[in-house]
């Protein structure tokens, strides 16, 4: 089968499977996962492709098992991955916290579904807080990509492995049920690693070449030692914020109001923007591509010249809080949030844009 993967060509592929193929191309040596909808096609794809490539695939006893297998595989210096959807991601948070503290590179995917609790299996972005705030216990962050189409799922999976290795930290894609399930043409780019990825030789375990015994741990009982470890992480995070923040701006130059949206929502927002422009409104779009690091500075600059922003998200104001933090009181930040599988309609957004433009000076317009 592997010889049939037409690298460099355009193919029609499901989002979940595109991430799987990108991981295979990027040299992922082990995939560990537990079934959960709507990401099952990714696990199924890897069960075939990883074995074809002579690599490791385990359907684990639980999401907890999967993330801890990643912890082990990353500790011996191999690329590895797990994927899940919201309830399963809650289970993985324990392991992600240990991975963050031990500075191990692990890449993972959350195909977000409706919650809280068992919720439903419909598309959602309600794990935004969980993803961008670290998610588990303790002081740490995870690099979070928010792709908007199947091509980006493929590209950012490859980039995700590189960035995880570059900074030795957990890195993830936050997708949603639509992105995971939809098919779209994409070009299966050949994997080209980032230049100057650091060697793992000085920290990976079980390598006879290292002279002194190594220790991978997240336990530092003495307070100054643990505080310094966390401060070191946060100095690294500052570096990442400087180097890796990604976003896209569309038609913001003359805009009176700017839509802020990521992932699937950014596409619906873009359709709404086009319709609103036809109706005479001057609307732009700001799309965060990395959700952590969040593009706060460019949003803040935009707030200097735009009077209104309208956040559209598949959650009830989670990213809205980040936009408000980024822009301070410089601009009015309105909210169109849907939840638990509700999808904002294009016409609803256009209507909301008009309401926002018509709002009184001290009024923030929300749809709920």
């Amino acid at each position: 089968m592997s010889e049939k993967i037409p690298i460099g060509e355009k193919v029609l592929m499901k989002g979940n499977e595109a991430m799987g193929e990108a991981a295979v191309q990027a040299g992922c040596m082990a995939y560990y996962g537990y079934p959960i909808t709507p990401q099952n096609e990714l696990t199924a794809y890897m069960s075939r492709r990883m074995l074809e490539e002579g690599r490791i695939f385990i359907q684990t006893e639980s999401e907890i098992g999967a993330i801890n297998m990643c912890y082990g595989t990353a500790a011996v210096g191999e690329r590895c991955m797990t994927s899940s959807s919201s309830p399963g991601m809650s289970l993985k948070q324990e392991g992600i916290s240990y991975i963050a503290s031990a500075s191990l590179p692990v890449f993972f995917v959350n195909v977000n579904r409706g919650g809280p609790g068992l919720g439903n299996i419909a598309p959602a972005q309600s794990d935004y807080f969980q993803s961008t705030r670290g998610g588990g216990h303790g002081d740490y962050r995870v690099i979070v990509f928010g792709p908007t189409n199947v091509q980006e799922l493929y590209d950012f999976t490859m980039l995700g492995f590189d960035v995880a290795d570059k900074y030795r930290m957990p890195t993830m894609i936050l997708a949603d049920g639509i992105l995971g399930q939809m098919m779209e043409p994409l070009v299966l780019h050949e994997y080209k690693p980032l230049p100057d990825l650091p060697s793992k030789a000085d920290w990976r375990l079980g390598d006879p070449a290292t002279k002194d015994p190594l220790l991978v741990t997240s336990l530092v009982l003495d307070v100054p030692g643990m505080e310094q470890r966390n401060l070191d992480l946060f100095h690294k995070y500052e570096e990442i914020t400087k180097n890796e923040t990604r976003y896209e701006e569309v038609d913001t130059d003359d805009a009176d109001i700017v839509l802020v949206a990521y992932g699937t929502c950014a596409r619906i927002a873009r359709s709404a923007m086009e319709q609103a422009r036809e109706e005479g409104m001057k609307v732009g779009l700001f799309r965060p591509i990395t959700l952590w690091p969040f593009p706060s500075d460019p949003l803040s600059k935009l707030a200097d010249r735009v009077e209104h922003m309208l956040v559209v998200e598949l959650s009830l104001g989670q990213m809205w809080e980040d936009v408000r933090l980024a822009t301070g009181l410089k601009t009015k930040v309105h909210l169109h949030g849907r939840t638990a599988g509700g999808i904002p309609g294009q016409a609803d957004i256009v209507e909301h844009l008009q309401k926002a433009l018509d709002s009184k000076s001290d009024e923030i317009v929300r749809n709920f």
Partner: protein
Amino acid sequence: MTQKIRCAGFGGQGIVLMGRLIAYSAMVEDKHTTFFPQYGAAMRGGTANCSVIVADCDIAAPTVEEPDVVLIMNGPSLDKFEDTVKPGGWIFYNTSLIDREVKRDDVNVFKVAANEIADEVGSSRSANMVMLGAFVAKLRTIELDTLLTRSLDAQMHGKSERVMELNRKALKRGASLAE
């Protein structure tokens, strides 16, 4: 041009395959396309559906609220989706399994006796291909030739030559209804 299409029927009628064939053909013809299946827990006796967008420019929203075209394979699907069609749009429906008329008068209606024709061709399991052939020949969103020469092979590889031939025949018979 942006055309939003919804295929709907019951599980087992090959609804998802119809959508994938349209999307694959669009890609082969260098058009932009997205395909999105209804997914979820097992739903017996309900409707299965998927949506496809074919466009000559970038596709923003992949969601289909108001389809331009619906390809309806059974009664419950007509009940569910009749009202969603854009005024001036198209309803293709399977009269073999639906014995009522379309109520709306602001849309175009095209009737296809999909199961009966498929039976004549060789198997009622090709009813989806009859429907697809009619749609393609009528609206030319994609070319029949692309389906016959490229998409079937790509999306149905592994099927026996007998099944493939049946599908090709069913597509052509469907197309002949619209000529």
